[in-house]
């Protein structure tokens, strides 16, 4: 113990004197290890940020990003006057708000249910079943929706028919798109998202619970006064992180679920960006990049704002 403290002091004092050169000489292996990931981040994450300036240019393939003409905010003006943009924006915000309203509270409720489950085997089976959908790919999820709600062969349609006596064409009615999209997402992701809360709950000191039981607190009160307050930091951080997705509805799923019937409800910013950036013989890169950049900036600002609010209100923040 004493030796350790002595040594630590030595390190601290020696650190102050150390120059960059000495540090590099001492840690050269660390620099070498970090080299590849660092290059990756610079090339694949930061270079595209520089490349995002294409949104302020009129991109011509022959001239490249740097050679194309600078047009300022022209692409953004085009974006705001684009007939589909507002529809896509409205759909994006509707879908993501609908998702957030469910995907923030449901995992918390799930984690608490798991924590108070009676019987270890029962708990394990339910948990396993709830986590499993997370491992299905988006293609499989969308295929499952299409197969199980198929108007002719789908089992859910048969069940609805048996209960209500009438067939409801879920896939053929655009009204159902939002509910299908959001609830299938909850079905797939809520169990897995609860993992963070489960781990936070398992960290709660059992002595607090024992003291509460002796004082006559029932389970409802223990959840309200012990469990929820102790997982508050986790809730805050998960909420801050999910606010960043307010303008980014998962592209893959929307793209795969989209069809001419539900187009009015399923066209979102991500699919608009994709179709603008890939359709036609000469894709409109600059226009698509403008949408992408706008989404990125708004998401970033949203995270910053939520982080700030959370920091002032509850002292929980990302950094």
């Amino acid at each position, binding site marked *: 113990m004493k030796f350790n403290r002595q040594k630590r002091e030595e390190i601290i004092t020696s650190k102050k004197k150390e120059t960059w050169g000495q540090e590099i000489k001492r840690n050269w292996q660390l620099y070498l290890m970090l080299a590849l990931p660092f290059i990756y981040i610079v090339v694949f994450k930061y270079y595209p*940020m520089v490349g995002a300036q*294409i949104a302020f240019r009129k991109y011509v393939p022959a001239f490249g990003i740097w050679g194309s003409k600078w047009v300022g905010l022209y692409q953004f003006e085009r974006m705001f006057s684009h007939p589909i943009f507002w529809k896509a924006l409205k759909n994006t915000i509707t879908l993501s708000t609908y998702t957030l309203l469910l995907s923030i509270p449901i995992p918390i409720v799930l984690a608490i249910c798991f924590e108070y489950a009676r019987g270890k085997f029962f708990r394990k089976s339910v948990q396993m079943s709830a986590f499993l959908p997370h491992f299905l790919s988006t293609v499989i999820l969308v295929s499952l929706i299409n197969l199980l709600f198929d108007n002719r062969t789908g089992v859910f349609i048969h069940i609805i028919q048996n209960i209500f006596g009438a067939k409801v064409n879920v896939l053929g009615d655009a009204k159902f798109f939002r509910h299908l999209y959001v609830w299938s997402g909850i079905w797939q992701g809520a169990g897995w998202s609860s993992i963070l809360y489960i781990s936070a709950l398992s960290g709660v000191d059992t002595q607090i619970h024992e003291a509460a039981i002796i004082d006559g607190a029932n389970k409802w009160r223990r959840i309200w006064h012990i469990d929820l307050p102790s997982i508050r930091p986790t809730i805050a951080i998960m909420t801050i992180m999910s606010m960043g997705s307010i303008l980014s509805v998962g592209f893959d799923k929307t793209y795969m679920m989209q069809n001419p019937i539900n187009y009015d409800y399923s066209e979102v910013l991500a699919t608009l960006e994709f179709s603008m950036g890939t359709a036609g013989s000469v894709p409109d890169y600059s226009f698509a990049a403008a949408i992408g950049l706008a989404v990125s900036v708004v998401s970033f600002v949203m995270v910053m704002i939520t982080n700030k609010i959370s920091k002032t209100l509850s002292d929980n923040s990302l950094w």
Partner: protein
Amino acid sequence: MNTVKTKKCNNRIKSCFADRVFDIINTIILAFILIITAYPLIITISSSISSANAISAGKVYFLPVDITFDGYIAVVKNKQVITGVTNSVFYTAVGSAINVVMTVLAAYPLSRKDFRPQKFVSLMFAFTMWFSGGMIPSYILVRDLGMINTRWAMLIPPAFGVWNMVLVRTYFQSNIPESLFESARLDGCDDWKYLMKIVLPLSKPILAVITLYSVVGHWNAFFSANLYLQSAKLQPLPVILREILLLSQTNDIANEVAMATEGTASLQELNVILKYSLVVVSSLPMALLYVFTQKYFTKGIMVGSVKG
């Protein structure tokens, strides 16, 4: 004194009743969760081995009816599916290996407090989680690097994930005591040896977790394949699944008409159970992987992510 005693007693009886209500409600909720998460999967497996007639007639509600394995035979015979599986296995194996190596290479230096650029680089990496250049600049970059329509496009752009790095770094910092490094250093152990001989063997749970994340991510990767690959020979399974499971649906009506006139309705029927079988076959590897690596979750994810 007496009143206090009775009050306490009352309280206890009341709390017992409230607790019992709670337990009943909780068990109902959990049973409901079990049903809604498991039922769609069970019905899919049952449908995949039932006859198409039984499915159309709405006879399959839980157990398979008129058991047949025609769907699976059709899947195994499908050349497209075989190409997709082969490609996906390759992308998953190589891609995940790259992922894990890159993650460890970044996580170890950034977990060391005496590494001077640690703070700056961590912040620089973390920033990319909140802000990105967008799809088009990334596409242009991959195109300029000459990776379009090559296998590299599936391996290099997703080579490193910052989130995984954060998990591993947190694990290193909170589970491996610093004194271990100090004593190893005194014994003349350099960073590389320390990482390989001490840190990694002590971090098996978190390595299992990020390997699982990478494997699942690569197996299910759709976006980059859709964007960067055109050649049918290179397509991974998800793209092929989309073609068979989702895009062919619009042709169903056309098929139906064509089949009806030729009297080969059985082909169209086979189509339904083929889809169910394909869903089962393509999700089975990840489902099994999850079941067998489960025990690491409680150790890996939970310990690694407590700090959030």
